[in-house]
């Protein structure tokens, strides 16, 4: 199989043998171990848990460890590049700092009002709010949605689907007490209002989450807060 790997501004061609059940990560690993040890790429768990091996495969962001070559190879060719919308450190390795800094800008950390002296908060698992939270909390921060998002490409300040999804899970968390500050942080030109609901993030999310629904929820919550005079 012919593999075209993006290195800097150009693509380098490699010939890699096809194997049964071969993943795209296997292909990249084969290239580094047998053809060119200078190839830089990132991975850790190899089983879809850590979220570090995401790359562009035939121009689509994917976890390479969970992407079988058989499913994505076009004929006998495959193209692999670093995640879109992120600065490239080298070859297939991107700098994820901006991606995670945006989680902080979206006030993605939990702020509870209770102390260790208080009893456990009782949150019924079937309560409507908790059901909404549960739909969004399995994100592992792989950056696939961020690379799939056209709005991030057009507006580099845009917080992006993952950070906004995280904010949504906290807005709906009954224990968190920073809702208004968070709604302020996720509003405006760089926040939820910039989303055009293209649904690329939802389409590509390997965990089958829906950041689009989370962002729509944030828009509703912000609108409510503004109309009620809270923001």
């Amino acid at each position: 199989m012919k593999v075209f790997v993006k290195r800097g501004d150009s693509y380098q061609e490699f010939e890699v043998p096809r194997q049964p059940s071969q993943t795209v990560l296997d292909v990249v690993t084969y290239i580094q171990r047998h053809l060119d040890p200078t190839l830089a790429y990132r991975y850790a768990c190899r089983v879809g848990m850590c979220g570090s091996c995401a790359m562009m495969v035939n121009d689509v962001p994917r976890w390479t460890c969970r992407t079988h070559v058989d499913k994505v190879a076009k004929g006998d060719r495959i193209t692999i590049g670093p995640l879109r919308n992120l600065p490239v450190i080298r070859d297939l390795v991107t700098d994820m700092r901006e991606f995670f800094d945006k989680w902080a800008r979206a006030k993605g950390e939990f702020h509870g009002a209770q102390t260790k002296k208080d009893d456990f908060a009782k949150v019924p698992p079937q309560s409507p709010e908790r059901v909404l939270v549960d739909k969004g909390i399995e994100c592992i921060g792989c950056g696939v949605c961020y690379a799939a998002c056209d709005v991030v490409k057009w507006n580099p300040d845009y917080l992006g689907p993952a950070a906004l999804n995280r904010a949504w899970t906290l807005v709906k968390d009954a224990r968190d007490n920073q809702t208004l500050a968070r709604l302020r942080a996720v509003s405006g030109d760089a926040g939820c209002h910039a989303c055009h609901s293209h649904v690329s993030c939802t389409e590509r999310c390997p965990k089958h989450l829906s950041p689009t629904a989370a962002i729509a929820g944030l828009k509703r919550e912000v609108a409510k807060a503004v109309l009620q005079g809270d923001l």
Partner: protein
Amino acid sequence: MSYRRDTILWIAQRASAAVLALCVAVHLATIIYAVQNGLTAAEILGRTRGNAAWFAFYSLFVLAVTVHAPIGLRAVLAEWLGWRGRSRDLCLLVFSAMLAWLGMRGVQGVFL
């Protein structure tokens, strides 16, 4: 307070979109119905002129367009041309006023 302004613009765009959805549907249905029996322009004007209900309907249509289009264009200019800030918003206000003037001129011609 960009979050507040952007949120109000977002609400205005969604609300005007809802009005437009209704107005466009009524507008298209009326056109199809009106031309079926081979009405001439003069006959149509004969029926529309002086009709206060249609005047109000199309004035609302024009108002919804003047709200909806500039807000959409605001995002397009920011994303495609990187044009943000006061100069863009002032230009869009002029654009909005132009839409209102042209639209109401049309409404006046048909209904007054």
